[in-house]
Structures are given as structure tokens and as C-alpha cells.
């Protein structure tokens, strides 16, 4: 077990994980640069670009923290660099835990057990990495085809603008409804937190609009998370 962890935390693995992290950061910076340079051509000013960036950064604090707390459990099981690489890209901590578990079992030993061998570790890494590649491949291969299909809809002038708005808004609402109800049916506490957030969010946004507090809009998701955690803390 300890020998396996030595391998799991060795330099070459750190280098590969470091490269993956660098690419994620590089990609984000590239898209920020591209989007900023495009902004003025669609009537978006510098202030709005900054608002978008700031709101994105603030809104990710809460979710990131929750993600990382779960990810910590992986550190002792698969080592630091592999955790960094797997959590840093597509694939959530619970999904990666499944991958690591079935991978290790297929090689004959349990994750984190005394008999955890180098082969079992390698197999777990294979399964997690191949699993993650599934999403990446589909995205790399098919996003262009999807955008061509979208371009066909968008070729219809004004009519298509309203059409795309309806599709995007409905899709967003559909996704959140799905993700929200999976939480609600988990239990009474989750349902209460959901309802509290559902009731308080319009208040926050109303205040922001009424008193022209743009910072409040930017912080709205952060605040709603604090409201949710507090409500959950007191009722559970």
C-alpha cells in the first residue's frame, strides 16, 4: 500500500497532472481573450465584460468548495497528482470514485486496502482516464456538427433569434429543474433548503433591481448558497 502511494505521488505523475492543469487554465484564458475581443462587435462594453467575469468567479466559489470537500476523500486513495488531474477535468468526484473502485476490483484488490497493488492502481488509473476520454472525444468530434445544425436554424433572420432564445431559456430551465428535483427527492431537509432558496432568490434580485445594486446581483448565487447552508444547518 505505502509503496503504491510512493508511485502514485512520484514526479512523472506530477508532471502529467501539471500539464493537464496548465491546459485547463490556458484554455480558459484563451476563451476570455477571444470573447473580450468579440464583445464590442455585439454591443457589449468593457464594464459588462468585467461584470460577466466577476460574477462567474464569485459564483464558482461555493460550488468549487463543495466539490473539493468531496475530492479530498480521493487524495488518500489514488494519490495527489491523479486526484488533481481527475478532478481538474470532466468527471465528478463520485463518478471518479466509481471508476477507481471498479478499476481496482477488476485487477483483484480493493481501493485503499492493505493488498492494494501497483497493478490495481494502474488499472484504476486506466479506467478513470479512459472513462473521462469518452466525454472529451465526443466533444472534440461532434461540437462542430452541432454548431452547423444550429447555424441552419439561425439562418432564418429575426424569427430564428426568438426561436434560439426560447430554446436556450427552456433548455436552461429544463436542466435546472432536473438537477433541482434530484436534490429535492433526496429528503425532507434538501426539499426545505430548495424551497427556502426558491423563496429568497426573487427577494435578492428584487432588491438588486429596486435599489440598483449591481454587486448584489453578482453575489446573488453566493448569498443563496449561504442561505441554503444556514437553513440546512438549523433544520438538520
Amino acid at each position, binding site marked *: 500500500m505505502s509503496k503504491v502511494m510512493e508511485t502514485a505521488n512520484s514526479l512523472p505523475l506530477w508532471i502529467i497532472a501539471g500539464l493537464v492543469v496548465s*491546459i485547463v487554465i490556458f*484554455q*480558459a*484564458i*484563451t*476563451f*476570455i481573450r*477571444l470573447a*473580450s*475581443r*468579440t464583445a464590442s*462587435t455585439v*454591443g457589449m462594453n468593457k464594464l459588462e*465584460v468585467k461584470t*460577466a*467575469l466577476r460574477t*462567474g*468567479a464569485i*459564483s464558482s466559489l*461555493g*460550488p*468549487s468548495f463543495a466539490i*473539493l470537500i468531496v475530492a*479530498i476523500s480521493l487524495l488518500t486513495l489514488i494519490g*495527489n497528482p491523479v486526484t488533481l488531474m481527475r*478532478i481538474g477535468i470532466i468527471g465528478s468526484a463520485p*463518478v471518479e470514485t466509481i471508476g477507481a473502485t471498479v478499476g481496482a476490483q477488476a485487477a483483484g484488490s480493493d481501493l485503499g486496502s492493505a493488498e492494494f497493488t*501497483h497493478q490495481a492502481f*494502474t488499472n*484504476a488509473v*486506466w479506467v478513470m482516464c*479512459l472513462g473521462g476520454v*469518452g466525454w*472529451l472525444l465526443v466533444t472534440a468530434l*461532434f*461540437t462542430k456538427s*452541432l454548431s452547423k445544425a444550429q447555424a441552419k436554424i439561425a439562418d432564418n433572420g429575426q424569427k430564428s433569434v426568438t426561436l*434560439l432564445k*426560447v*430554446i*436556450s431559456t427552456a*433548455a*436552461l*430551465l*429544463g*436542466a435546472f*429543474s432536473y*438537477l433541482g*428535483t434530484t*436534490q429535492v427527492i433526496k429528503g425532507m431537509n434538501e426539499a426545505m433548503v430548495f424551497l*427556502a432558496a*426558491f*423563496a429568497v432568490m426573487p427577494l435578492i434580485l428584487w432588491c438588486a433591481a429596486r435599489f440598483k445594486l449591481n454587486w448584489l*446581483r*453578482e453575489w446573488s448565487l453566493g448569498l443563496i*448558497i449561504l442561505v441554503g*447552508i444556514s*437553513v*440546512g*444547518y438549523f433544520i438538520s
Partner: protein
Amino acid sequence: MTLNKEVQNETLEQGLEGLRETAGVKTISFEKFHDRSHFWGRLTIWAVIVLSLALPLYLSYGLGFHPGWSAILSGFLAYAAVVGVLWFVEPISYYPILGISGTYLAFLTGNIGNMCLPAASIAQSAVGVEPGTKKGELTATLAMAAASIVNIVMLLFIVLGGSYVVTLLPQSVVDSLVFVLPAIFGGLIAQLAMQKPLWGVIGIALALAVNLGPVPTSLKAFCCIFGLVIICLLLEKLKKTKEIA
């Protein structure tokens, strides 16, 4: 005289444009933005695919811990049985929301439902733009890119030693983190439903039906997203025919 002035203004503007170009703040058109997004998006994702294969290959052959292809395959098939459908369903389902650049961003950094979409949606509300518009797409891209950076920097900090700090947190605080997700989605549904109350009611009803009904887990998100899109398109059509009549 006035004509002369106009000409002068024009040359001045052209000059300014040239200056901006040389200063490196050249603006690009929306079509060009999509082209470059495809290029950089694909390049970065292919690079990560290569690295994702390099890691297990190094362990197998560089260090000689190869577990055998049959073990890899049996583990992979067990895993694919759980998530395999999602590889195809998720990029297609989320595309109408994420757009081109958003898809490349979100599917590389991950945490689409719990981080990228919420960040994008709230940023659109803060800037005051609608989803599905050009400005909305740029806003979402900027927000998700910023979210991606914050997420990975926090992860880096935790992995490089911050996990000790986290162990100092009281257990009750760690336990209440399960309420982050219900809070996020409750708030975001309310935010969107403020604009479209009817859509919100139908969306939640549909999602409850899908979640409690006999739908395979991997297809649930797809059913909720595309189901609501179709219903809303029909509703809009009904509204229009009513207006005409």
C-alpha cells in the same frame, strides 16, 4: 466644407482603427469568434486526451505495472455501463445552453450542472442579457472561463496541502455542504421562473415526473431538457396563433 469634414472624420477613424490593430486590441467578428473557438477548443481537448492516455501508458509500460488488457477492459466496461450513455447525451443536451465556446470550456473543466451553468446563468442575469443571444453567449463564456480558473486554482491549493486546513473545519459545517446544491438550483429556477413563471411550473412538474417515473437515469437530463424545449416551443406557437386570431 461639411463634406470635406466628413471625409476627414472618416480618414481619422480609419487611422484610429489601424492604431488599435497595431496596439493588439483588434476586435474580431462573431463568426471569427466561433471559428477560433473551434480551433482552440479542439486543440486543448485533444491535448488533454493525449495526456489522459499518457498517464496510464507510463504506469503500464514505463514502470512495468501493466495489469493486463482483460483487467482494463472488464473495469472499463463496468464503468462504461454506468456513465457510457452520458458521454453522448450530455454534450448534445447541454449544447443549446452552452454554445460552441461554452461546450469546449464546460466539457474540459467539468462540473457542468453544479458550477458552469449556474455561473453562466447568474452572469447573464447580472449583465442583463437573455440566453440564446450573441451577447448572452459571450457572457456565459466569460463567466464559465472565470469559474474554471477559480475552480482549478482552489483545487491546486487543496491538493498541494490545503487539505489539512479542511480537516480543521468542524464536522457539522462539512455535513451542511450537502445543502449547496439544493440551494443553487432552488435559487436558479426561481431566477428564471421570475421571467417565465409558466415555463417554470411545467419544468418542475416535468422533472418530478421524469425523476420519479420509470426513466433510465442516464436519459433523465436529456428528457427534462428536450421535453421542456419542445413544450415551450409549442406554447410559443399557440400564443402566436392566438395573437393572429
